[in-house]
């Protein structure tokens, strides 16, 4: 049995941390209404608060101001309805890859069914051969794929992915993107995806949310964290070479401060 | 307790169905009573629990916490406990031991107690050898602060004497007998009258409620006294066995250092020794006041049962 895709509503979310040198405002006035089944890509400069935002949605952290609702109700830590793939793999070092993926299974999954699902997922992320290895015996990319498989194992209503393909080579990366498109098609789920790759965002997302760093002197000090939201046209699977997308790509990169004229 | 006998069923003519009593290597009669099984035979329907006491203080601890109904201690220890409020009464005198003496190494130049002036002596505070030392020094006119008393457990005192850490040791049997036999230590001064007697004590409430059973215990002790004088070799063997010591050492202890053949009724003889010890307790702060000691001396003795056993 799997979860239905759920809507996510962020209302005026802000988060300020206390540090030795005073308080540090990381998120300000984030408003976002994500429909059930929608794929949202979050992009923005390093340290602008993308991971922090995902932590609010998964209730691993609590906003200083504002509220977060999933499916109309507040989230709790370890909520059955959400699953996270963290920016770091965060595998339990004393468990094999298979057992790490099994951690993602919903509680009370029958044993045989769980084992079958874990095997299936490991196969999907290309790690069927490495199921019995420990985290310290695998490469960075392998660990990252294990972490992705663990999040998928949860079959959640909302999938939170923090740069899930960052440590992957070009080919594996494309494969994993297609895997995600596939999963989303066969088992509809809402996806919040943090990525640094604008092409990836445009290939996968329905909307791209551009965040800005609050310390950035270029923006008015009163502006919120969300710099811009871009609707991506067309249905998945998209053509990576589509001209509308290449134009959008240039626009987004410009937004992020990257001079695109030097690129083809 | 680990040594339980008696089957619990039966006539039930006794005022209690349990008796907790101790045995100890420093109380040879207790070994006889336990070994012969007299209490179990006599006290039909009473569960008799035997517990070993490692020393007077342990027996006192058992009596104070009501884990023991009857326990054996040195006379001085009984007085100390009573003076500090423990409600016990001496119901029988099981021996007049000569378990303490002052010991020096074989080659020591110390010839008399007077020579101890300025020397260091090992002793265990609060035990008979310590009181023996105090009395001996007093008799020889040596003030206590003229000697350096090293507080060591009995066995450690012997070790300290052997390796020259101290010049003399207020020893206790059977370690003292072993020291004589093995390292050739010499008894510098002995005096049986400076030893307090061996007291068999019962808790007051036990005595009040179960006098019939207490009487059986005292009777058994007197029977053991007779048995001991009839079977000296067996008693030596018994002690050697239970204490895990050599037969020769056990023989020295029983035959030369223990008077079993004495008047079992607690009374004047014991009071005389304890009157010497009492003020020492007060001076050292182990008992709050002399009044406590005096009251304890008045209340400690319960001569009736032993008198009954002797006459009956």
């Amino acid at each position: 049995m799997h979860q239905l895709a759920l809507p996510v509503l962020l209302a005026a979310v802000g988060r300020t941390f206390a540090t030795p040198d005073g308080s540090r405002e990381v998120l300000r006035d984030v408003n976002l209404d994500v429909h059930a089944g929608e794929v949202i890509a979050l992009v923005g400069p390093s340290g602008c608060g993308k991971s922090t935002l995902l932590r609010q949605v998964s209730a691993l952290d609590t906003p200083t101001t504002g509220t977060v609702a999933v499916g109309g109700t507040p989230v709790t830590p370890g909520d059955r309805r959400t699953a996270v793939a963290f920016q770091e793999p965060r595998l339990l070092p004393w468990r094999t890859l298979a057992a790490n993926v099994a951690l993602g299974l919903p509680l009370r999954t029958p044993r045989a069914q769980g084992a079958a699902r874990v095997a299936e997922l490991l196969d999907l992320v290309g790690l069927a051969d490495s199921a019995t290895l420990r985290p310290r015996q695998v490469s960075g990319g392998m660990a990252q794929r294990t972490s992705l498989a663990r999040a998928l194992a949860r079959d959640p209503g909302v999938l939170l992915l923090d740069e899930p393909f960052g440590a992957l080579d070009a080919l594996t990366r494309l494969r994993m993107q297609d895997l995600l498109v596939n999963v989303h098609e066969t088992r509809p789920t809402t996806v919040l995806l943090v990525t640094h790759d604008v092409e990836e965002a445009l290939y996968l997302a329905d909307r791209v949310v551009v965040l800005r760093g609050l310390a950035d002197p270029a923006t008015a000090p009163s502006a919120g964290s969300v710099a811009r939201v871009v609707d991506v046209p067309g249905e998945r699977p998209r053509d990576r070479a589509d001209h509308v997308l290449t134009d959008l790509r240039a626009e987004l990169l410009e937004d992020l401060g990257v001079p695109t004229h030097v690129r083809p | 307790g680990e040594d339980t006998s008696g089957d619990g069923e039966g006539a039930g003519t006794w005022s209690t169905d349990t008796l907790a009593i101790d045995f100890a290597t420093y109380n040879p009669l207790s070994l006889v009573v336990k070994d012969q099984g007299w209490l179990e035979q006599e006290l039909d329907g009473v569960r008799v629990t035997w517990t070993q006491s490692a020393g007077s203080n342990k027996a006192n601890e058992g009596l104070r916490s009501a884990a023991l109904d009857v326990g054996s201690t040195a006379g001085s220890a009984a007085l100390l406990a009573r003076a500090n409020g423990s409600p016990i009464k001496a119901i029988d005198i099981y021996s007049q031991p000569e378990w303490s003496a002052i010991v020096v190494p074989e080659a020591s130049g110390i010839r008399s107690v007077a020579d101890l002036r300025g020397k260091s002596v090992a002793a265990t505070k609060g035990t008979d050898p310590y009181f023996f030392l105090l009395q001996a020094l007093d008799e020889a006119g040596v003030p206590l602060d003229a000697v350096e008393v090293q507080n060591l457990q009995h066995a450690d005192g012997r070790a300290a004497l052997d390796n020259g850490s101290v010049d003399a040791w207020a020893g206790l049997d059977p370690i003292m007998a072993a020291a004589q036999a093995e390292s050739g230590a010499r008894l510098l001064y002995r005096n049986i009258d400076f030893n307090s007697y061996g007291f068999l004590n019962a808790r007051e409430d036990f005595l009040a409620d179960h006098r019939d059973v207490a009487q059986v215990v005292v009777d058994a002790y007197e029977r053991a006294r007779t048995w001991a004088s009839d079977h000296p070799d067996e008693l030596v063997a018994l002690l050697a066995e239970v204490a895990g010591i050599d037969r020769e050492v056990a023989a020295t202890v029983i035959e030369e250092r223990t008077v079993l053949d004495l008047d079992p009724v607690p009374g004047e003889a014991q009071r005389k020794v304890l009157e010497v010890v009492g003020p020492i307790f007060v001076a050292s702060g182990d008992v709050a006041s002399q009044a406590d000691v005096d009251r304890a001396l008045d209340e400690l003795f319960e001569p009736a049962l032993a008198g009954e056993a002797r006459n009956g």
Partner: protein
Amino acid sequence: MAERAGRRGAPSRGGRARALGLGLVVPAALLAVWYLVTASGAVPAYQLPGPGAVWRAAVDLAARGDLGHHVAISVQRVLSGFVLGAGAGLAVGAAVGLSRLGDALLSPTLGAVRAVPSLAWVPLLILWLKIGEDSKVTLIAIGAFFPVYTTVSAALRHVDQQLVEAGRAFGRGGVRLLATVQLPAALPSVVAGLRLALAQSWLFLVAAELIASSMGLGFLLNDSQQNGRVDRILLAIVLLAVLGKLTDALIGLLERRLLRSWT
């Protein structure tokens, strides 16, 4: 000093045999020194009997049928006390290590009680529990409690928060989080605490067997000290060390099974 960290992994069979052999070097050397100083007469036998005399004392006690009893009853007491105390230490250690309230409420008191020596407990326990088996096992359990409590609470306080968060994100909370993430992460410390607790159980055994015993290695030690039987004192020490090591090896086995994935 650095060779281990370089490359690690399960030691081979030959490696384990070699380790066993190396482990016997120090005991063998001690035995040799002991034999030499006693056989040469440098230390007289009544002060320090030689290995031979201790061996004979063992044979003698065994022939009386006592040795087996001493060992059996002590092992039984130590194991029961250890299981009780370590279990309680784990529970309270978890409460103090994971909950701020538990920490504030309990850790000051436990920090004080930790310094109360075994001998000091004896009169209190006799008062509360009389002189039966209960009081002995309780005293040993008290001894076993503190090392486990201390190491577990400290280790749980410092488990990698990223892993804890991962466990929490996948629906583990409370006892389940403890079992899935926190205890495994703290396992090396927990095992160290169990080792200390077991050793402490043996230490407290001696005090426990001051409570009205006539059997057990602690009794043998106390009684022999009372009677000046140095050979039996040494026998008791050697037996305590050997049994301590043997039971410790049980924890070693447990550790190897549990920590295989950690090396």
